[in-house]
């Protein structure tokens, strides 16, 4: 079997290598500036992600939420019976969490607000917000934080955000509305979505920790 695998991988490398050489000469691609202008934003990638290909982005958000639904569902009843292995708590971590939390939150909000004119947008902002929560969880202990951030309510908020996003998709795609405000709104919804999802996953995985 190892022999077959080596042959297969060699063949794969060869084929992909041959294909790689074959992509030159590259085709001309359309200029992105007119598209960005047509959608009223400066960042062409944002215009593609949240405007031209919003249909794909809706599915992408759905994939994300569905995976989070699955993770929650499968890990719901799972708690490590007995003493949870403690998360190491150090003064340095607590102190730096306190210091960093504010700037991290501000940066995430900045990315949401400016995603349509520069690099940024909802997905990075949501990931940053999620990691801010991770930082907080490391400093305060996962169990305490998950008691404070009451999850069922957050979960509901997450699904409602998805419904809003679908509605926004209908407004942009079917009614043909093109405005920077729609981009900011979409970025904000995506950021909230991703942040809650990231927190939910982290929290679930942390509560289900233990030994085999």
């Amino acid at each position, binding site marked *: *079997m190892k022999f*077959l*695998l080596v042959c*297969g*991988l060699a*063949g*794969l490398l060869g*084929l*992909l290598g*041959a*294909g*790689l*050489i*074959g*992509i030159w000469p*590259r*085709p*001309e*691609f*359309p200029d992105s500036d007119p*598209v960005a202008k*047509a959608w009223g934003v400066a960042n062409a990638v944002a215009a*593609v992600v949240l*405007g*031209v*290909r*919003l*249909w*794909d982005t*809706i*599915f*992408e958000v*759905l*994939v994300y*939420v*569905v*995976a989070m*639904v*699955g993770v929650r*569902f*499968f890990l719901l009843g799972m708690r490590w019976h007995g003493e949870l292995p403690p998360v190491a708590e150090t003064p340095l971590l607590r102190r730096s969490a306190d210091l960093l939390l504010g700037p991290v939150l501000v940066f995430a909000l900045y990315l949401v607000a400016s995603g349509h004119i520069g690099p940024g947008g909802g997905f990075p902002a949501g990931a940053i917000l999620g990691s801010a929560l991770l930082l907080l969880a490391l400093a305060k202990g996962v169990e305490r934080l998950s008691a404070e951030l009451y999850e069922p309510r957050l979960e*509901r908020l997450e*699904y*409602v955000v*998805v*419904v809003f996003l*679908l*509605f926004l*998709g*209908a407004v942009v*795609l*079917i009614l043909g509305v093109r405005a920077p405000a729609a981009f900011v709104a979409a970025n904000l919804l995506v950021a909230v979505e991703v942040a809650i999802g990231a927190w939910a996953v982290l929290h679930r995985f942390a509560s289900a920790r233990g030994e085999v």
Partner: protein
Amino acid sequence: MNAALAGILAYFGLGFLGIVFGKGRETAALAILAGLVSLGLWAPGFPEEVVGGPPWGIAVAGDFWALGIWGLALFLHAATLLHAWPKDQLRHALITLLVGTCLAGGISRDLFNLYVVLELSSLLSVILIAYEGRSAAVWAALRYLFLAGLGMTFYLFGLGLVYGRTGLLSLSALAQVETGDMASRIGAGFLLAGAATKTGVFLLGLWLPKAHGQAPTEVSLLLSGLVVKVGVVAIARLVEAFPLGPILLALGILTGFGGILYALRETDLKTMLGHHTVSQLGYMLLGLGVGAWEGTLMYAVAHGLFKGLLFLSAGEAVEKSGVRSIAELSGKIPRPAALGLALGSLAIVGLPPLAGFAAKGLLSLGQPLWVKTIFFSLSVGTAASFAKLIPLFRGQGTGRFGGIPLLDAGVLGLGILGLLLFPELLTLKAWAEAFSAAGLGVIAYLLLRARLPALPKLTLDHAFLAAVLTAVILGSLALVA
């Protein structure tokens, strides 16, 4: 186009509202209604349009594939809802989302949009397969997720090669440009390998049946009846854009006979039905390979109906009696389920006037003799494998009807409709062929019963190896074809 998009968005929105309010059943019913309204609004079809506008928008079209998939999806969803009504709410919400994904796959004509749709459908399928938390089902779901992830990795490489060379993602635009160069050919091979891995054809057909067999009843129905068809539509779209026809012929023959070979040996009822999904995919690939589009679509819809019926009846029988093996089930099946099994088996073997007969007839209409011979021998093989279900056709006592009568009516109705629309199928020759295939199959089963060879047991590592080999083989074939 707007009606179709609004219908899909409504499906997803209602699915999530079902999760939020814990009312999955009711929102599923509303979603079916919304889907029907949307289908009624765009019904005869709409020409290809670009969502989001050029140059980078997503091409969607309401062609006959979309029409077939939408009709099948809404019908199967209604049957599922009816059958699984007493089950919990979250499950119905997730099923609504899965059906919505398949609706979106039906109209998509964009390489990347197809990727996203296929990924969403695999994630939802995985959650639903493992939903009841039995460890065999969880393991089957994990295996499915691994293989789907691997297939989609190949798909992305293929997409990268095609996009890198042509700068296009829309399949109809790709159909109009020259794609005979090395990068596009290899890319097309990888795209096909990805879609094939996801759909479970060729070598990968050996693993997906286990997932279909382990899933809860209504999920098996949707997986075999609907989700697999989205993969078939994806492959059909690829064939329209790239010259992959001859490869599909070879794949179809291998998939068809391979599925039958494994099904003949299988003793677990639901897993055997899963293997037959693979063998039936062989028909559809052959149909795509010879360019019989309408026949393939008709077959896909008919297969969705009769395989749905078989899985529903088998699932009902297994749930009721608590045993899975064919030998032990004999005499323990309630009447409605037994009737469903019998009708579904007759339809899958291709006896008139059921849906399978009409679909097989339409598929082989006007084909050369060698294609007809392959179809005939596939029918014989199917009959040989289904012959072992004959003892199960006698029901004991009454049981729940659920969605079984709806699918009974669907299988019968589609068959009669096919006969009325295509009077060529009403000849004595066609009927004699159908019955002789079934008879030969039963005789073959009686002869072979005792001396079937043992097939090797296959592990997850073999599956990964098979996925790599699929990509290499299809890539090289696409390069030289």
